[in-house]
């Protein structure tokens, strides 16, 4: 039987690079008349300069304020009045901008992203307005929230020593308020070159026609120098690092532990750590939940995951496996930490039964399938995989790679999580003074 290669559906990736360096990946899939568009710039919180904490995120806000062809709010209005929604986010290693729309809005969405890649409207007025908005965002999510920023903003400061890895990516108010229009223009010039970005489009699209539209709208954005990505590596702890955070809004104690893990670029070494995080702390069948919540009843919730603020396949080195435990009022954090150590030691010495690992991998695979079912999530993952790993196909390939992880690899990963190489952060409920 003659076979023709499918040009739509799971597994299909088309890629091209424009002359200005913009990398493009397309994932055609006509199962629903919708599309996702995402632009990933290879700059994040780790790249912001000292004295300018929070700047990468503040700049993300400025990218929504208008551009060469669009007045304030027009970008947003065009996406919404085309039947779509949009957002952006700033993470340790990237800043992304994305929208999901009915398929017939594809050309318009490409135009909108190209217009702000060419020339965002960075003005004094927009900057002052968005500094105020970002401060409200920080009040909502951190200052006025019990456990605000725990542990994603606060644990890195304990585990890491260098500014790029340790600092608070939301930023200090004084530093946000000292940001200038020139800072923003310099940041754009340096990091938002087309060659420093990946554009991903997925959904109900014709690949050839889409490439032609991308050439039309992005092709004449001038090529600019692409900054070399700095090496953010720093040595792992050789003794336990500890801090306490008094939180007068928190009703009960909490504790987070973090351990450095292998470079995510090396999937063969990194995927066993993801499987270990699943064994230890994902769901009701996990070991930390069974021990701390079900058996000892020393915790109300317990879990573990890899990375601080993004998904574990969306981050570069250095990152961490994080265990997070919420205690009841008056609970004993030291007892909880001892129990976590025992559970990790038990994996390291007794190993993981193969059927337990199979269960964890089945659940993780199902979660990855569910993300791939969503046109926006699929687009985001494709852009990130292409940018950080040069392989958008990982959207569909990771489940099989996870199935290849062996119990011995998980056991070996557990042996690296020792009390003397970790960071520990305690949230201590404080009385209002």
């Amino acid at each position, binding site marked *: 039987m003659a076979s023709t290669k499918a040009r739509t559906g*799971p597994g299909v990736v088309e890629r091209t690079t424009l002359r200005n360096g913009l990398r493009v990946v397309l994932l055609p*899939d006509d199962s*629903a*008349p919708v599309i996702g568009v995402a632009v990933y710039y290879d700059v994040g919180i780790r790249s912001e300069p000292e004295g300018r904490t929070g700047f990468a995120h503040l700049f993300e806000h400025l990218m929504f304020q208008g551009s*060469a*062809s669009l007045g304030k*709010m027009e970008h*947003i209005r*065009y996406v*919404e*009045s*085309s*039947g*779509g929604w*949009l957002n952006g986010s700033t993470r340790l290693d990237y800043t992304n901008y994305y929208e*999901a729309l*009915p*398929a*017939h*809005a594809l*050309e*318009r969405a490409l*135009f*909108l992203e190209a217009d702000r890649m060419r*020339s965002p409207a960075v003005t004094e007025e927009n900057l*002052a*307005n*968005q*500094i105020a*908005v970002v401060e*409200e*965002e920080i*009040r909502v999510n951190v*200052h*006025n929230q*019990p456990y605000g920023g725990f542990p994603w903003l606060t644990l890195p400061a304990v585990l890491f020593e260098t500014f790029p890895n340790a600092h608070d990516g939301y930023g200090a108010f004084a530093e946000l308020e000292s940001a200038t229009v020139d800072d923003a*223009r310099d940041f*754009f*010039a340096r990091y938002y070159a087309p060659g420093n970005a990946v554009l991903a489009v997925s959904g*109900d699209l014709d690949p050839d026609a889409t490439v032609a539209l991308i050439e039309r709208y992005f092709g004449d954005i001038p090529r600019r120098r692409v900054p070399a990505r700095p090496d953010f590596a720093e040595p792992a702890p050789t003794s336990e690092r500890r801090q306490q955070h008094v939180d*007068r*809004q928190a*009703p009960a104690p909490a504790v987070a532990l973090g351990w450095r893990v292998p470079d995510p670029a090396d999937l063969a070494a990194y995927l066993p750590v993801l499987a270990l995080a699943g064994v230890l702390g994902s*769901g*009701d*069948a996990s070991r930390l939940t069974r021990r701390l*919540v*079900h058996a000892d*009843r020393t915790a109300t919730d317990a879990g573990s995951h890899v990375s601080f603020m993004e998904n574990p396949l969306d981050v570069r080195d250095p990152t961490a496996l994080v265990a997070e435990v919420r205690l009841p*009022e008056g609970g004993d954090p030291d007892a909880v930490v001892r129990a976590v150590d025992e559970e990790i030691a038990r994996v390291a010495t007794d190993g993981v039964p193969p059927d337990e690992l199979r*269960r964890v991998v089945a*659940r993780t*695979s*199902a979660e990855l*399938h*569910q993300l791939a*079912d*969503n*046109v926006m999530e699929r687009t985001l993952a494709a852009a990130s995989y292409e940018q950080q790993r040069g392989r958008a196909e990982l959207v569909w390939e990771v489940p099989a790679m996870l199935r290849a992880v062996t119990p011995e690899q998980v056991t070996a990963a557990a042996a690296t999580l020792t009390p003397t190489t970790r960071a520990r952060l305690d949230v201590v409920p404080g009385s*209002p003074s």
Partner: protein
Amino acid sequence: MSPASRAAAPREVPALAAPRRPRLPRSSERVLANGLRVVAVRRPAVPLVHLRLRVPTATRRARDIGRTELLAQSMLLGTDRRSEAALADALQAMGGGLRAGGDPDGLTLAGESLAPELGGLLDVLGEVLTGATYPRALVERERTRLAERGRLQLSQPPSAAADVWAARRYGEHPYGRRIPRPEEVLEIAPGSLRATHGRRITPDGAVLVIVGDVAPARALDLAERHLGGWAASARTDAVPRVPAIETGPLLLVDRPGSVQANLRFGGDAPDLSDPSFPAVQVADAIFTGLFSSRLIANLREDKGYTYGSYSTMRHQRAGSSIAVGVDVATDVAAPALVETLYELGRIVTLPPQPDEVEAAVQYLTGTAVLGAATQSGLADTLLQLVVRGLDVSWLRDHPARLAAVDPDQVHAAAAALLAPSRLVWTVLGDADRLHAPLATVTEVTTLAGA
């Protein structure tokens, strides 16, 4: 000179292409002998299957919300065949999960698994529905956790502010309690849940939706095999009538030291099936539902007072509601209230511009297509429709209903929905700093915090 400061010439925004018709899912349906209605839809995009089960069972008193939630949270603690650990292992092995949640109108069980495991997932579901044992010691454990969670939610401004608004709107009606009070939860007798389950968790009026990579006929057969033995009880189930809305002064609830004021306002809304619903949706979208809405353009993008505002329409059995939330720094609470009243006044006294209506209609139409384009989104949407006696045809016909909405209808809908004089107003925040400035704008009653 940096590229950003070199003015690029403006270009023309391209038009939209011709819209593509979404292919609507075909649904298959069967009513089992015990009364359970099962709806199945095939969507093969990824090798998963999702289920949603809704059991209507009204909570009669606000203080019993905790009992409903504890019942839901304790359903998976063991059955006559399997322990808690064995259930969790079985679900995990299917790549699956199963969660139960309670609200004043009933319980929802939501789950998913790898597609070939649907039989196993339905087997666990049937086993829980007919044989959950509620072991006393484990229920006690979950009772403590639920009480701790209540304490946490009461300490979190967004959830606490929603509770304050609901209590002000609904009083002692169960809709008035969003967070079970820890002291009420701790009074529940752990040994009483099994009987509660027998009385309340029955197939009478229940609905099961199955969506995923499975042939509908097979899904219906599997549902019949595993849930056919769930015994009916012919119980009657009515939600207490909600009290008429009682407007009055803005209620300020003290949260000492709070750096923000959490403003909530809202009132009654029409049901999904009401003829005015499409115009109400458009009015809500123009006022604050869109990111490019009037309230966000004013409070966030012009004044910088807030990170965002949002509205929530809750479709409940005894009456739907709308509530809008805005969180602002304490210092700007009074001017933010003034701007909010201005925008409300504008939308209830004047018809919107035709292009505002058109934008909102496009947004509501497009995002509905996006929402139904995933297995889990379609399952959630279908459940919401089927529970209200509607079906997938509502999804098919709604774009035409939205397209027929004109500015005058939006004006009339807004006047009925958002007139400031018909709304209930609450603020959670630092009363010492908020009372005087708010009282210069409107009448304020202050209450000590929880």
